[in-house]
């Protein structure tokens, strides 16, 4: 099985959609998914639920999910719902 990485730019208006796309890519065998949140100012409960699903799936398949450009507010949300440790955040 080949390993590869996929990059998804997250549209602030369609965060859940981007996360679903990430799930699909994972289902197609991507070994690493990079989600670029740099243009996302905040997330809603729907996005949190989608991220919980994504994290669960990634853990089951040993896929690394990298969140790029996550601002401090969103990172705080992920910490509070205990999701932060399930993703990678590049320096």
């Amino acid at each position, binding site marked *: 099985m080949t390993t590869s990485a996929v990059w998804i730019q997250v549209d602030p208006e369609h965060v859940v959609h981007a996360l679903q796309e990430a799930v699909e890519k994972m289902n197609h065998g991507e070994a690493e998914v990079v989600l670029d949140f740099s243009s996302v100012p905040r997330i809603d409960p729907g996005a949190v*639920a989608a991220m919980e699903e994504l994290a669960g799936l990634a853990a089951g398949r040993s896929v690394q999910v990298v969140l790029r450009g996550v601002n401090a*507010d969103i990172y*705080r949300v992920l910490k509070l719902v205990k999701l932060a440790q399930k993703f990678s955040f590049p320096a």
Partner: protein
Amino acid sequence: MKEQAASLSDERIAYLEGLVRQGRTAAAVFTQCTQQDVDRIVKAIVLAGLEQAQYLARLAIEETRLGVLEDKAIKNMVATEFVYDYVRDKRTVGVIREFPERGLVEVAEPIGLIFSITPITNPTATVLFKCIMAIKTRNAVIFGPHPKAWRCCQEAIRIMYEAAVKHGAPEGVFTCLDSPTIDDNVYLMHHKDIRLIDATGGPGAVKAAYSSGKPALGVGPGNTPVYLDKTADLDMAVVDIITSKTFDNGTICASEQTVVIDDEVYDAVLKKFAELGAHICNEKETALLGRTVINPETGFMQPMAIGQKATDIARFIGLSVKPHTKLLIAPIQGVGPEHPLSVEKLFPVLSVYRARSVDEALRVCMDLNHLGGLGHTAVIFSRNDETIRQFSEVIDAGRIIVNSPGSIGALGGVYNDMVPTFSFGCGTGGGNSTTDNVNVYHYLNIKRVARRTQAHMWFRVPNQIYFNMNAVENLRQFPSRATMLVTNPALERLGLVDVVRRSLPPQTLVRVLAIPDAEPEVKVVLEGVEALNLHRADQIVALGGGSVIDAAKIMKLMYESPEADLEELAAPFLDIRKRVVQYPTGRTNQVRLIAVSTTSGTGSEVTPFAVLIDKQRGRKVTLADYSLSPDVAIVDPQFVMSMPKGLTADTGIDCLTHALEAGVSIHSSPYTDSNAMQAIRMAFKYLPIAYENPRNVEARSMMHNAACIAALAFSNASVGVNHALAHAFGARFGVAHGRANALMLPHVIAFNASVPTKFMPSPNQRAYVAHKKYAMVADLLGLGGDSVAAKVQNLIAATEQLLDRLEVPRSIADLGISKEEFERAMPDLAKIAFDDPSWRSNPRMPLVSELVELFWSAYRGRGPGKGVSVSEQFTAMEWSCV
């Protein structure tokens, strides 16, 4: 958690976990909202609640069968409109308060997910209130309503939730337990993701909340005592009490329970109650009420009576009253189980008690207060401020309502300026953590961002300093009726007293007090004060060295403030501005102190310090306060021309030590540095000359000035560890202060220039600079050196050379003190040195073991082969820049 879940089905647990997950996510997402977002949502939910106030009141009445529709509608309006009026301008997001002058900023942090229990008595109003609190503070809430008020609460929550989400609140911000049970409550109270429990309900729910180990807000039961004293506006009082006690049929726990009425107005008050629709029960009726509305077994009110109309209660128990009776009034003779109606009654039954005196009234109110109502609410009607004050002091209640209705008054914002609430904190008396009216600030974690402050500094010196040859002639400008000239016998013999006497204005009545030429003892000071009183002195001229001037300072203190307690004033302190013991400010007498110094070392003529000998404890006691500073200092070298060589050396080294210690002190400032550096330069240059050529006027004059200038520095920057060591050592072995300082000095320079084991905490120190300051001194003295390390070493060497030139013994051993004797003394020396306040301003905090090592270094001494040097040096980079 498993224990709590034992009685719950898996489905129920999954349901509860779902609520928690939803709430936790909502709370997390909510943290992203701004103040503007929050304020927009709050306004929307307030309007939604306000619009449905009557509808929700009707639902509450239909479901609970408690209270009055109109009153419940008003409660709902208070819970929305009045609460909004309080919170609308409050900052609850991000920075909420700033104190720029104190460098403090308060930042709001939401709590997260709150589990909130709401009561049957005020169901919808409490929900509306808590929803507003939660949104304003960006928290999510799971509501656990009273099972018998669940439907109306659920509807209130739905109304608030829909308005909130529509205006930007996260989904799941409010949820409500479906068919709530006690097991649900217990499970949630122990859930790790519930951050706070806000329990407004019965004692059981509140106790469970506090027992959960979680942070909790809980109210306590009330038993509001009312004191109606004879000075009260009786008409107003009666109307207010009826208004309050009948409001929502008495369901507000802050409502009046027993009115204690002064005998003089008792009958009149009852008459007014009757006129306004109250039924005054006779003895039999009171007994009947007591048997029926209070459970004789538990001593608590019967649930069936709660929130019912007076006429319904009367009908139910078979009491005949007029059709429009508002209130049943039951006279009682005491408080306690044998007087069942003295407990809380959340229905329109009010007890009254006739009090024969203010003391009796207060006693009965306290009894009521302690009978189940601690910390809650109390009411007083009085025009007598003293009675109101007394009542406020003896009654334990979070809310003491004056001349207004208890229930509506306690809610806040209507009859007074208290914070509007539907949750009354009852303090520790009620088993609560707060006595506040619970409000938005209880729904926040408030973070304090504390910036480093710059400590206030000062440079305080006597008003007038006269210096150079014949400066003493300036005494002429100080008129005095009676002057006490404090001096010592030696100076008298030398004729110096006559010099001073001649310089005083001719009409001055002068009395000379010659005290022993030694550091003053308490006895000497007290004798001096007695002499001052006999002479009725208005001026003290202290002619002498440090001992005489210090004695005069303390005499002045005791003469002006005879109540001063020297033992207490000598209490230790860390920061002179925060000291526990304050020096007296009121003065019985007022006296001018002029200090004429006859040695060039202590600088006592300008310092705020005085040293006393405590013979019993074998130590020196240092008094320190700017009120001790002389008013005038005279620094006239003619008084030091005949100083013996040894004294010249010892006092001169004392001066140098003052300047060096002030220079590296954590309290040093540009003001003190300039004085310290100048004094060091003068001492290094002129001290050996004055020592070797005692008649050299220039050298004497310069050293005399140097001592004063060094004292100006250390009066404001203080001294350091050198003095702590010298005080302990000097007192123990009877060694002159200056000489004791000299024995320690090179070792202390090396100690302070080394990397500290412990730094001294001080906002004034932005970096450790003692070594660099010593290097600056070396530069000032032209000692050379191409690095800070070399410069410090050169300073130590120059100091050692100076001490040799002054023929100061090189070691403690050279004084003839045996090693064994010194070893025996060491525990005491170390303890006394550590207790000495002098080192509190040293740049390096000395450990006791380091004090011991310094003593031993001084014992071994300085000089060739002894190698006094910096032990642990700073890195090359640290050393490179000055």
